[in-house]
């Protein structure tokens, strides 16, 4: 058994009297897509926010690459290589593709010994094109504001950005929401490509067809607890729904 890339042990997060995440343990391995399932309010997002540094867990620990980590802020998680792609994508729609991929980390040309620094647009454009092509994403033009792109194309820009900046683990929150069917397929295809390149993906979703289309394993949460963990090939939609609504619960059987 290889070492898990991400290992969560006994994670608990409380908001006042509410236990949003209750003693969850979970491993993610290199090169797999793991779906995180659950109804609204099941604790999926809270669990992920504890991993990505948005929240501090009250209990439990996280190990990344075998080392215990603590992320005080989201930026710390990103520095470690955990990229979270939220539904709102964190893109600036008024800027072009290159500007977005390099947002906050712009490449610069130096003049007069670094006294004057200008943006290296050509370099950023070249690198952005390469990053997109590595994911087999092709846009007619990269220098238009991305507000002219479709939702799926923007999703692709956000993913390409994460990959370009060396994401070691990608967390995606409902990535196919609000997309047309062809676009959904494209995003799922990109997720497969990420997995094949060795970057594991955690897919937060309640779209079951997506789960069966791309995930290798899955966990289901219900009311803050992990109620099951399965290989996707060994389960069915009916069974998953029963876990999601709380009819089935592996922890109760034990």
């Amino acid at each position, binding site marked *: 058994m290889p070492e898990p890339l991400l290992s969560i042990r006994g994670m608990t997060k409380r908001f006042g009297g509410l236990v949003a995440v209750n003693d969850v343990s979970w491993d993610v391995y290199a090169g797999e897509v793991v779906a995180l399932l659950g109804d609204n309010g099941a604790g999926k997002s809270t669990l992920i926010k504890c991993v990505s540094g948005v929240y501090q867990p009250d209990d439990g620990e996280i190990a990344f690459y075998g080392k215990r980590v603590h992320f005080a802020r989201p930026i710390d998680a990103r520095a470690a290589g955990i990229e979270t792609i939220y539904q709102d994508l964190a893109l600036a729609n*008024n800027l072009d593709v290159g500007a977005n991929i390099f947002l906050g980390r712009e490449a610069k040309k130096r003049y007069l010994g670094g006294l004057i620094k200008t943006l290296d647009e050509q370099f950023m454009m070249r690198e952005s094109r390469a990053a997109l092509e590595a994911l087999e994403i092709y846009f007619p033009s990269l220098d238009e504001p991305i507000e002219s792109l479709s939702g799926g194309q923007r999703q692709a820009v956000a993913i390409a950005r994460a990959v370009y900046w060396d994401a070691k683990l990608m967390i995606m929150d409902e990535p196919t929401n609000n997309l047309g069917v062809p676009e959904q397929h494209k995003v799922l295809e990109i997720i497969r490509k990420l997995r094949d390149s060795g970057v594991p993906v955690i897919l937060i979703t309640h779209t079951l067809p997506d789960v069966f289309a791309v995930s290798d394993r899955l966990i289901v949460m219900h009311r803050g607890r992990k109620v099951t963990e399965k290989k996707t090939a060994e389960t069915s939609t009916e069974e998953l729904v029963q876990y999601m609504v709380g009819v089935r619960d592996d922890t109760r059987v034990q």
Partner: protein
Amino acid sequence: MLRLSRLWAWVFLGLLIVFFVISVPIWSGGSVNFLTVRNSQNILVAITPVLLLGLGQTFVIISAGIDLSVGWVMSLASVLSALAIRAAYNAGLPLFPSVVAGFAAAVVGAGAVGFINGVIIAKLKVPAFIVTLGTSFIVRGVSLLMSENTTVIGLPEGIRAYGNESLFYSIRGEGGGFYFLAPPELTGEMLRRMDRILPYPVIITAIVVAIAIFILRKTQFGRHTYAIGGNIEAALRTGIPVDRHIIWLYIFSSVTAGIAGFLSTLRFTAGSAVIGDPLLLSSIAAVIIGGVSLFGGAGSVVGTVIGSLIIAVLTTGLVMLNVQSFWQFIVVGAVVIIAVLIDQSRDLIMGRGRTG
């Protein structure tokens, strides 16, 4: 990043000039022309303060903020620079170092106001509209206190040259010529035939405009300004130091207003605590006509330059047509609203939401 969709502003400016070039001679029976060297220079001198106030404002509004304090900051800088020049000169300093002291006082004083604006907006999360409204009152009070509620006079006569002389001089007609830097000794009728070309305030403003264009288009600072205005959440999550950036934006805005105040002190050989206030709304109008979105994320310095030119050409042309001054306000107001309407319908036609 000159957007083709802003083409109408250029076209509008061109049409305005053509209109006045034709109508002014007709109205005056051929005795007055619109597009003369003197008139073009007058227009340039007239727009310098509005443009300088608009420059910083352009950056601030692109970041989805607003700076209502620039008018009174300009006044404060005018008073501070006048007091500094007078004090330095009276303390025995030569003229040029005294002027430099005045410049430093204007920039530092104005910059301090910008710093206070920025810190309260970025760190204490008070809306920019409210913060800068508040500081504009405070700055107004401070300026009037410092100037003892009167014009600051008693400045060395020599500074008049800094504020009014120009790079080139051209004398029309008989015995005319073209002079560089030093104006010829002239009197009477000859003096009336002399045009000042590129006055120093215009050159200083042009330099500040060039720097602003460079910063906004070519540097990381400019890129981050657009990013903050386009999606502040994205800016935060990608690690852009948003708070620090906002503070610098308001400092920049105040400093350009400070330069405007300094130039007005040179121009009038006096400091005035009320010089900037009437210019605030004109400068915002110039920025809006120039295509900067009040929602942030879109706009350019060149747009603001065009916006300022449109306002100046309009008002100058109407004056030359002997149109009563209230009509200028009515026309400028209509242009502001029409400009935004054109921008909005463009967004609608192109099937987009609000630009950024």
